[in-house]
């Protein structure tokens, strides 16, 4: 099968010059954003978002691409609108700010979480993710999860392309169950076409998940501990703001 323009998920984008965190550092960045997005409100959430996006700009640049994603934007719009509608329906707001605070916070939280997840999944390779889980004793799950995390954006894109192609050809106007089956077949077949490339890349690196003598790939890089400490202290500082 001749496929020329397919991006190889095993090949990572060229990393910028300068210090880059290892898997533990990237995990610390993800946890930093997720925890702050879930526990902060009001002004603290704004500060947290600013710091989290700055951290992403430094080490997880792909996460910022979520800001320009139209589909995510549409989903956030629906989320904010439905939250605003529920807010209006449930109580009379004291002020316009009171009306928009909850929906705006909800939208910002969702954007932060989506960006953090995208940045994390793009920053780590399959061996990084599998290394993290292998250290926890989950060898098979580790490798499969590494593949899944890396394939996730690609699979979503494949599914979206196949859906649009089918829809533009009028696929969902009649015999919808057949259209759904066709969509599933196309998406699964296109996704499985990557299986050869990924397993070939793993075998070329002599990767054997069940080799008991093999040490899992290193998960910490010099400076990861310092980064985790600085992020933890920053998170505590943001949480203490205005108290």
């Amino acid at each position, binding site marked *: *099968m001749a496929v020329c323009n397919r991006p190889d998920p095993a090949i990572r984008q060229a990393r910028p010059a300068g210090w880059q965190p290892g898997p533990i550092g990237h995990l610390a960045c*993800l946890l930093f954003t997720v925890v702050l997005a*879930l526990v902060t409100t009001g002004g603290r959430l704004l500060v947290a978002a600013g710091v989290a996006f700055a951290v992403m700009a430094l080490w997880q640049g792909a996460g910022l691409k979520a800001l320009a994603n139209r589909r995510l934007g549409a*989903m956030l719009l*629906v*989320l904010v609108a*439905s939250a605003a509608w529920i807010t209006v329906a449930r109580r009379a707001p004291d002020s316009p700010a009171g009306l928009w605070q909850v929906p705006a916070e909800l939208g910002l939280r*969702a954007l932060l*979480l*989506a960006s953090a*997840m995208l940045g*994390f999944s793009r920053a780590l390779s399959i061996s990084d993710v599998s290394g993290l*889980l292998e250290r926890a004793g989950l060898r*098979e*799950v580790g*490798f*499969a*999860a*590494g*593949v*899944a*995390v890396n*394939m*996730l954006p*690609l*699979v*979503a894109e494949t*599914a979206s392309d196949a859906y649009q192609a089918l829809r533009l050809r009028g696929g969902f106007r009649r015999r919808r*169950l057949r259209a*759904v*089956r066709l969509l*599933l*077949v196309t*998406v*699964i*077949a296109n*996704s*499985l*076409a*990557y*299986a*050869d490339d*990924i*397993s070939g890349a*793993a*075998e070329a690196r002599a*990767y*054997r*998940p*069940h080799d008991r003598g093999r040490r899992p790939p290193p998960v910490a890089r010099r400076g990861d501990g310092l980064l985790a400490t600085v992020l933890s202290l920053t998170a505590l500082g943001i949480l203490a703001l205005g108290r």
Partner: protein
Amino acid sequence: MRRRPFGIRELVCIGIFAALWGAVEMSVGAALHVASVPFRGLMLTGAGIAIALPVRWFVPRRGSVLLAGSVTALLKLISVGGTVLTPAVAILIESALAETVLSIGRPRRLSFAAAGGVAALWPLVHPFLTVGILAGRGLPSVYAATIQTGARVFGLSPAALLGIAGVLVTLHAGVGVIAGLIAWEVGRAVSARLRQDGSVQSA
């Protein structure tokens, strides 16, 4: 007897199916949760079964569906959304139920349908575990909420307990059986297409 470990190619296939299931859980699941659609758990389980059960066509070994479900649950845990723990538990249990049924004998159309039917019953039981036991609201309150939702959606009287329970069980099992049959057909079609292309060896 020790189980023969999965090979790299098998793990890659499992990872791809987990990514497919995870993509549905993260996108459609989040949207359904926001919209508070009734039976969203059943819808997601149906979609998950239709997408994940075909993994058995490409990794025809015991444990492949359970491993795909475990990886999907992990993906769900690190996904966007307020409630991720209980859906992750549901994904894990549904895949375990489907795996148990598929492991009885050789997988065929009937076992795919049965696996789907059994797995799709879990969303009916799930609130009893998560809300009733784990959240401590008690089983009677969950039972009452389930019956009230069923009565409202199907236009039945809340007094017709057996009727509502019967309709709910039939609906869940029916959706699961249809999803299982779709999974079988999809697995067969994908397998045929890939054999034609000569790109991936299938079961």
